[in-house]
């Protein structure tokens, strides 16, 4: 059976929730953001070009929703530090100490990056957007995507001693 637009969006809810959490660092705000993003997605479904990356389209909507939210509402909900509470959204590893530690370490290094670098590294390395899709989502040239992403990754490698 073919999956519906709604099914595809529901399948992406974990990705949306993860991305919303990285953007907002707040559980309440993240879930709100996911919901607003889905509302907009259903309302403007005609602007989605079938066959293109749905995840990239949704992330773009979410990012604009987030920016608008920051514009009008300087209170951003109660911050939850992913470093202290990786289990807040990640279910795996809550009982597995090693995974938990790893998640904590990487999350901690990630949080030390500037927001624009954190955002792009998540888009490309975790959400698997292409450079082109990320450039479209952020409204910046591909060259900027690449320089920002390379900076983010070399900094992260330094923090985590991957060199």
């Amino acid at each position: 059976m073919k999956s519906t637009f709604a099914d595809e969006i529901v399948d992406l809810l974990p990705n949306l929730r993860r991305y919303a959490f990285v953007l907002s660092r707040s559980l309440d705000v993240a879930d709100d953001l996911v919901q607003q993003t889905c509302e907009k997605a259903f309302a403007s479904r005609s602007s989605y070009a079938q066959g293109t990356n749905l995840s990239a389209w949704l992330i773009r909507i979410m990012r604009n929703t987030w920016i608008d939210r920051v514009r009008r509402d300087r209170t951003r909900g109660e911050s939850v530090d992913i470093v202290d509470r990786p289990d807040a959204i990640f279910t795996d590893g809550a009982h597995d100490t090693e995974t938990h530690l790893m998640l904590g370490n990487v999350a901690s290094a990630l949080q030390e990056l500037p927001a624009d670098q954190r955002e792009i590294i998540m888009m490309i390395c975790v959400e698997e957007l292409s450079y082109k899709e990320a450039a479209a989502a952020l409204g910046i040239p591909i060259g900027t995507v690449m320089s920002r992403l390379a900076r983010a990754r070399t900094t992260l490698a330094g923090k985590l001693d991957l060199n």
Partner: protein
Amino acid sequence: MHEEKFTDEVLMAYADGELDAKTRREVEDAIGRDTALAERVELFMKTRALLAGTFGTAKVSVPDDLEARVRQMAGGAEMEESASGAEVLPFRQRSAPRQQGFAQRHALPIAASLALVAGGLLGYMAAGQPERAGGIEIAGLADDRIVEALNVSPSGETRQLGEDARFEAIATYRDGAGTLCREFEVSARGTSHVAVACQEIDAWQLRFAASQVDVNGDFVPASSLEALDAFLMATRAGAPLSAEDESAALSTLR
């Protein structure tokens, strides 16, 4: 040797599989000769694998009620499509009868108010009619008090524009073309508009305005914000400037 021509960006793009075939072969040749280059590529591969492995494969929990709400929205959106006879995409799902109530209560009124805002906006812009908010003319930014407020008010500040009118600076940003823009609200005697003005040839030009009040006089911020979102997306609006950057940008206007 030509190895130094490969910047971090190119090596990273190689690791990410983003290079064209020709450059990819060039990098492949080069990393075969130069272990330092190979290590650099490996660093980019490692960071990606680590992030993907840590976040990508960890299971993200989704609360049941969140999924339920999204499913409900989907039902509402479909009802709206079939009710309006709009063209539908091939994978449209038949909505379950129990979702009709939701659609009637929520989806249709939202769509209707959106259409009103969009229609009203296009209407006055096309006709070139000045939009008035209780005596304050927004469309041409003819009102010196608005221009002055745009020049000096930091975002978050509300200022009175005379007895009944109020201006609120929401945010300052640069659009995709690098033009300085400000989002603001003007309300006067029961009407309220959300608007965006951008600096063009040393003057503020109105780029967007939407009424936040519907035909019945009810406050409907949601629909005007939907229209605003579409505008911001279309013009590739950047993130709001920080207070310092905003202050620096505004100081160049005087």
